[in-house]
């Protein structure tokens, strides 16, 4: 079985986010880190590999991003991936969710994986459920928010948290599965693995290498256009009650709640 794990570098959660005055969009400078949700995906891949139920020939980490994205790949490899693939091209800059999913799908087509794993969202909040986009382009079944994953021969048994409780879904391989952070506790890489990461094979692909049509990616190829941000409407100042007569205070609270249909 071949598992591909899609990873993304995102601004570190600790970095104070701010707007880039030039573009009006989030300033993506500063520290970047492997998207925490993706570490759960890598861990899930490793657990399948180490579980022994199905033989796994290799786990491949795949990312789309600028030069700095190789760090996310190094981290993925230090956590156990056998090799990595870096899709990078100026033409991809500014791609929206659909364009990004299309580009990644083209890279995955080359790899022909049996299972694609990824974190269900990225910390920078820009890409929810890109797994669903990738799956549609690949013509594979997909599930998101998976919190338990068992592999049997040729198929998966997944549990996920949905609107009405936990669903158990059987999925035939090949498939695209987006995992939630409740699925596992990611391991820490050993120092040896961290130091050995740079030696593992890393392929760099451009859009033409991957057969990606430039017209379908980048700013021009993106159908959702984000524009400069504005300040949110100012919140009205709240009301303060000093409790002297508790009965009276409570009456006021109940009236306030009732006014807003909260009772």
């Amino acid at each position, binding site marked *: 079985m071949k598992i591909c794990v899609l990873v993304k570098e995102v601004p570190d959660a600790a970095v104070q*986010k*701010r*707007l880039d005055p030039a573009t009006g*969009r*989030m300033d993506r400078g500063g520290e970047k880190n492997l998207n925490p949700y993706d570490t759960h995906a890598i861990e899930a891949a490793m657990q399948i590999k180490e579980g022994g139920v199905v033989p796994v020939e290799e786990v491949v980490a795949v990312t789309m991003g600028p030069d700095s994205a190789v760090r996310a790949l190094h981290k993925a490899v230090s956590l156990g991936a056998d090799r990595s693939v870096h899709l990078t091209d100026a033409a991809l800059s500014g791609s929206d*969710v659909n364009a990004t999913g299309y580009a990644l799908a083209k890279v995955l087509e080359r790899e022909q994986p049996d299972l694609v794993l990824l974190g269900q969202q990225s910390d920078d*909040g820009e890409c*929810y*459920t*890109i797994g*669903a*986009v*990738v799956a*549609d382009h690949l*013509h*594979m079944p*997909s*599930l998101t*928010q998976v919190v338990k994953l068992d592999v049997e021969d040729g198929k998966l048994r997944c549990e*996920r*948290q*949905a*609107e*009405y*409780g*936990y*669903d*158990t*879904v059987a*999925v*035939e391989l090949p*498939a695209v599965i987006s995992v939630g952070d409740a699925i596992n506790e990611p391991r820490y890489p050993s120092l040896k693995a961290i130091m050995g990461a740079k030696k593992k094979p890393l392929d760099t692909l451009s859009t033409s290498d991957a057969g990606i049509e430039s017209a*379908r990616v980048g700013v021009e190829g*993106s*159908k*959702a*256009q*984000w*524009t*400069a*941000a*504005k*300040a*949110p409407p100012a*919140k009205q100042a*709240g*009301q*303060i*009650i*000093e*409790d002297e007569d*508790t*009965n009276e*205070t*409570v009456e006021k*609270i*109940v009236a*306030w709640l*009732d006014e807003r249909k*909260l009772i």
Partner: protein
Amino acid sequence: MPSILVYVLHYDGAFNKNSLGAVSEGAKLASAIGGECHAIVVGDKAGLSDELCASLGGYGATKVFRAEGPEGLAQPVVDAMAQVIRAGGHGYALFGGGLLGFEIGAGLAARLDAGVAMEITAVRAEGSKLIAERPILGDSAISEIHYKGDLGIIISRLNAFEIRETGGGAAAVEDVAVEYSPWSTKATMVQRGEQRGEQVNIEDADVLVAGGRGLGKAEGFQLCEDLAGALGGAVAATRAVVDAGWYSYSAQIGQTGKSVAPKLYLAAGISGAIQHKVGMQNSENIVAINKDANAPIFEFSDLGIVGDLNKILPKLTEAVKAKKGG
């Protein structure tokens, strides 16, 4: 004049309230851009009676497309919506948030090569176009999304759209025979909606009563639980009290706990330090009870009560029960 197709999720004979909100919003937006609001439901025909589907007219839908297909899975709905939109030429697809909404919307974007945006908190009309708004940077700024091409897909944040009964009559119900793609049927539901009682998911609660250090001791949480019970909500906790062992980690809110945005967040004995604030500042209505008039929480609460929670909470619980007619 573009029309809007709204996905409506149903379960156990009732429509999901986020979906109803989306229909209400869809109706409002459709009239603003000069089009119609249509709904689409996918599932077992047995659970989707004519009356049930037509009732969506009461929220402003003029037509409801009904497709027979697997329930609780996203990809079949992508097939259904793609087919309806290709035939009907809808300009926008609207979803009320939630797991399926995200999954379907994303898949639909791929299928119809359309722009999609998620976590939308507001939508406005400009001529015959819709523009979506989304908070970024921890809600300190609002970004706008404009759509290029024939279809724009809008997926809202949970609870973003208000449910509005328009008083409209029954909607027309139209059955659609969907050609499901080969991969849509490769996922099969084995068991749906299993309840697991142990941990209440505070992220889904409409009402949260949160307790902090001001409760004084672990037993203080009984006051929160009583009030939460009366209000029909759940109990949450700050990191300080979870660390102290007064309440379980699954209820923790804040920088390293969960983020919530309920309709009502009642904070008892919580100072409102920023590590906690970031986890609940998007709550629609924030009520705070604290004996310290200078507590930071009063700067962002909608209603603040300076007083002793040990006196106020029990009386409030009784009053709420009485008001609810108990």
